[in-house]
């Protein structure tokens, strides 16, 4: 079994985050949330083309941070990573596909009336 553990990509005990790491992660997540909300209250930024991409990037960073550190997927077996990232990719592609299908672009190119 120990061979399995070594060959299977199991986490090493040395890589366990400590509570100080957890506090730093919490502080980081809070700061990003503050920046997100702060950006929401700047009308010139909201009306700019940078608003939506920047919010999506900040949200993505928060998502990754929670999954990697709090759900400890960064340190975990690759099968768990596959079980999560596979359906997540399908879900993301479905969402993007549906948004494309029902967007104004779809109306413009004649997919929708």
């Amino acid at each position: 079994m120990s061979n399995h553990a070594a060959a299977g990509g199991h986490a090493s005990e040395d890589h366990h985050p400590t509570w100080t790491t957890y506090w730093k992660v919490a502080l980081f997540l809070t700061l990003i949330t503050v920046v997100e909300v702060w950006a929401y209250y700047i009308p010139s930024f909201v009306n700019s083309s940078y608003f939506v991409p920047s919010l999506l990037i900040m949200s993505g960073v928060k998502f990754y941070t929670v999954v990697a550190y709090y759900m400890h997927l960064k340190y975990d077996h690759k099968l768990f990573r596959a079980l999560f990232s596979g359906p997540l990719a399908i879900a993301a592609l479905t969402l993007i596909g549906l948004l494309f299908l029902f967007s104004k672009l779809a109306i413009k190119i004649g997919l929708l009336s």
Partner: protein
Amino acid sequence: MSASTSSPTAPHSESHAHGGGHYTSLGLDNRKIAIWTFIGSECMLFASLISTYMIYKGRSPEGPFPHETWTNPMTGQVFKPILNIPVTSASTFVLLMSSLAMVLALAAVQNKGQPVKPGLWNKMLASSKLWLWATALLGITFLGCQAYEFTSFIHEGLTIRTNLFGSSFFTLTGFHGAHVTAGVLWLFTLLAIDYKRGLGPGDALLVDICALYWHFVDVVWIAIFTLVYLIQ
């Protein structure tokens, strides 16, 4: 963090994990594989709900609307933008802090039995009950904020039947709230076990599985907060 729960040291012939689980041929506990598979399926469920919300966004002929003022042409009544960003920002912070409390609860269970360094802070860090209570109470606070939000929306004239925005919004956030409620109940079952016989390192997987579910609920809210509340 999870290595102790996912890489058993027992030989293959002893295929039963602690607490009645089974190790697979990969040396992974079947319950942990099950929770990750469940979380993967939940990703697709919430993606469908978020897609529905976003497709219908801006397609309601009648208000109230999330970010815009609307005047009812029949009555002349003016409806302000309905989303309450300060309250939702606070509830987002509460849910993020509940995730912190959850990882500290798991760490406390995994390290139980080890000598605790002197000092109040170290004693607090070693208390699984404290962090499980903190997680559950923060979850209940989040649900309270959601109940306040739903109630105020209904008072302002937005129900699940009012328009496309109301239908998709209440369905999406209601499903998420139901998941948080299930998570809080799960946390209370762990607390009951902790009070009855105490949670120790042998029970770490039980807490780990609950923690994975709780963090997943948190990441779903991270997506909802940005896509539903902040992007106009």
